[in-house]
């Protein structure tokens, strides 16, 4: 099992709001292998981003991590003191954010911000001296005229360029794991494809691992090796990407794939999943997808756990427990 880079076990994150306790992530377990492109898909509010942030304890109050383990190269990150975590953040595990315009500090040049990332993890380097590194990385993320661009402020760059800078910031310390939280959501489609290609290319070049969070199944299909589907704070299915698209097992995954319009076929009606995402304060008993599931039975009043139906294909549904 040495090829596992990150293992999340039974992660639980609660948000203590005035309306009640929101169990945003409720017992999520998965592992990410070295060198793979792992995607997490799910609707808005299903706990994808919270899971990603919890990995390096970036959850802000009123949220709190209430249970579970995050093993990164065998170390439990949730047990590490803040000081040690700071050494891991940005050096071993780096983040790419959804909205590049707000992920960059408006008052510093992009070169400065890349240089800062280098200097933070290297006390011997002054920010001023890390500028050459910044120019190098800007070239790496395919920004034209990197010397000049490094002296630009974020507002002087386009959205796609800003996202390249954010990717540059993530890449500059050559982290082992990059967590990309909806890296393409804020960009238009042509730029999306470029950014995804860039991510893939850099992953191969630096031999890192990428964990991407998205709600876009097209993006998932384009780049991922394995996919995890989340629903209402729980994992419903984990499978290699081809398997998931050819043979989705969980009713939710099936519904999700059916709801994506195929550009090659003219459809009369997009098949939406009936019903709504459950209220996260009063979640349904048992399987959380039960109220919307057409296969629901008595048994679904109990929470199913993940089982490996085929090699590498895990699903949390009673349908597959019969055997």
């Amino acid at each position: 099992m040495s090829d596992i880079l990150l293992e999340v076990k039974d992660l639980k994150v609660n948000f203590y709001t005035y309306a009640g306790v929101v169990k945003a992530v409720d017992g999520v377990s998965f592992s990410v292998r070295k060198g793979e492109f792992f995607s997490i898909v799910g609707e808005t509010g299903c706990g994808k981003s919270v899971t990603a942030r919890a990995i390096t304890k970036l959850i802000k109050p009123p949220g709190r991590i209430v249970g579970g383990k995050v093993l990164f190269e065998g170390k439990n990150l949730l047990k590490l003191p803040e000081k040690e975590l700071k050494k891991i953040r940005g050096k071993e595990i780096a983040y790419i954010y959804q909205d590049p315009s707000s992920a960059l500090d408006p008052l510093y040049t992009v070169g400065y911000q890349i240089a800062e990332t280098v200097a933070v993890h290297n006390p011997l380097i002054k920010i001023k001296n890390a500028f050459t590194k910044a120019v190098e990385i800007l070239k790496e993320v395919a920004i034209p005229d990197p010397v000049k661009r490094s002296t630009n402020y974020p507002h002087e760059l386009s959205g796609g360029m800003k996202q390249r800078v954010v990717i540059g910031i993530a890449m500059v310390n050559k982290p082992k794991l990059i967590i990309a939280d909806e890296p393409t959501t804020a960009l238009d489609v042509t730029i999306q494809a470029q950014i995804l290609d860039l991510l893939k290319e850099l992953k191969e070049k630096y031999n890192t691992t990428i964990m991407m969070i998205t709600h876009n199944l097209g993006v998932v299909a384009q780049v991922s090796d394995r996919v995890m589907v989340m629903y209402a704070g729980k994992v419903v299915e984990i499978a290699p990407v081809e398997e998931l698209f050819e043979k989705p097992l969980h009713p939710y995954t099936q519904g999700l794939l059916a709801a994506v319009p195929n550009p090659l076929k003219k459809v009369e009606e997009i098949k939406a999943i009936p019903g709504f995402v459950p209220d996260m304060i009063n979640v349904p008993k048992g399987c959380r997808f039960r109220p919307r599931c057409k296969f629901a039975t008595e048994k679904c009043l109990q929470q199913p756990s993940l089982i490996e139906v085929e090699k590498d294909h895990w699903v949390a549904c009673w349908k597959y427990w019969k055997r």
Partner: protein
Amino acid sequence: MVSMPRSRSFKFLMELREKNQARIKELRLMYEVLKKSPLALIGFILVLGFIVIGIIGPYITPYDPIKIDFSNMIKERLQPPSWKHWFGTDEYGRDIFSRVLAGARISLMVSIVVMAIAIPIGIILGLLAGYYGGVVDEIVMRITDIFLSFPALILAIAFSATLGASIWSAMIALALVWWPGYVRVVRAQTLSVRESLFVEAAKAIGVKTSRILFRHILPNVITPLLVLVTLDFGSVILTSAALSFIGLGAQPPTPEWGRLVADGRKWFPTRWWYTFFPGLAIFLTVLGWNLLGDGLRDMLDPKFRRRLEFRKGDTNE
């Protein structure tokens, strides 16, 4: 060959210009605002004049502002304004113009010292309260509220009465009552900047908390603080004059403006120049800071700027 160095220096200038493009634009915009708003310009000139006099004032006084010339005292005392004594003389025959000039130094010093103490306290407490929230926020803000629940002048009177009447205790007293306003402004701004993604992004690359606070949050909250500080410079000068007026600030023979007004009071209104000119100095200085503060707020307010940019664009095309 001849044009070589020239073209090189030209290129260098262009490069310099390109590098500082954002800053140049900023300065041009400030210039535009000043040009469009005569009041801000007046404020700027008054403040500039005050600062210049505050720095060189004591060296350019026509007469000694403190020493009493006993040999001519009887002859020179309480003279009305004339070419010899522009602002007249006081009861000891001292030149009031000289005393007012020298007084600018004291007011400048008081306001700078007070700000130099109050601003760092305000920034540090405001950042901590806003960034950490929770218990830290509660403790800091409740203490701040206690200070704010007294009128500044009353509290300053209490402090400087306790510390003993002198210009230094007046400064300390003013600094002690002035920081709560800054805590509030910095905290409120911090609360909103803290939620920005770039703060989380900074955390996610492993930046130390102190660096996040002072390098990423502080520069983003400084603008409203700057406006408030400019407006407050006038108030500090006014309040320190008030303290001296009631005898708790500068002690004679220090030529403090509030003190001069107080001393001239007993000769008022027949010897009007004694109170009038120091009073005018206070008035112009405070007015100058307030006008400048208002202008600065307009300058830094994006809405106002956009209006100005639009207007400029219209006339050009």
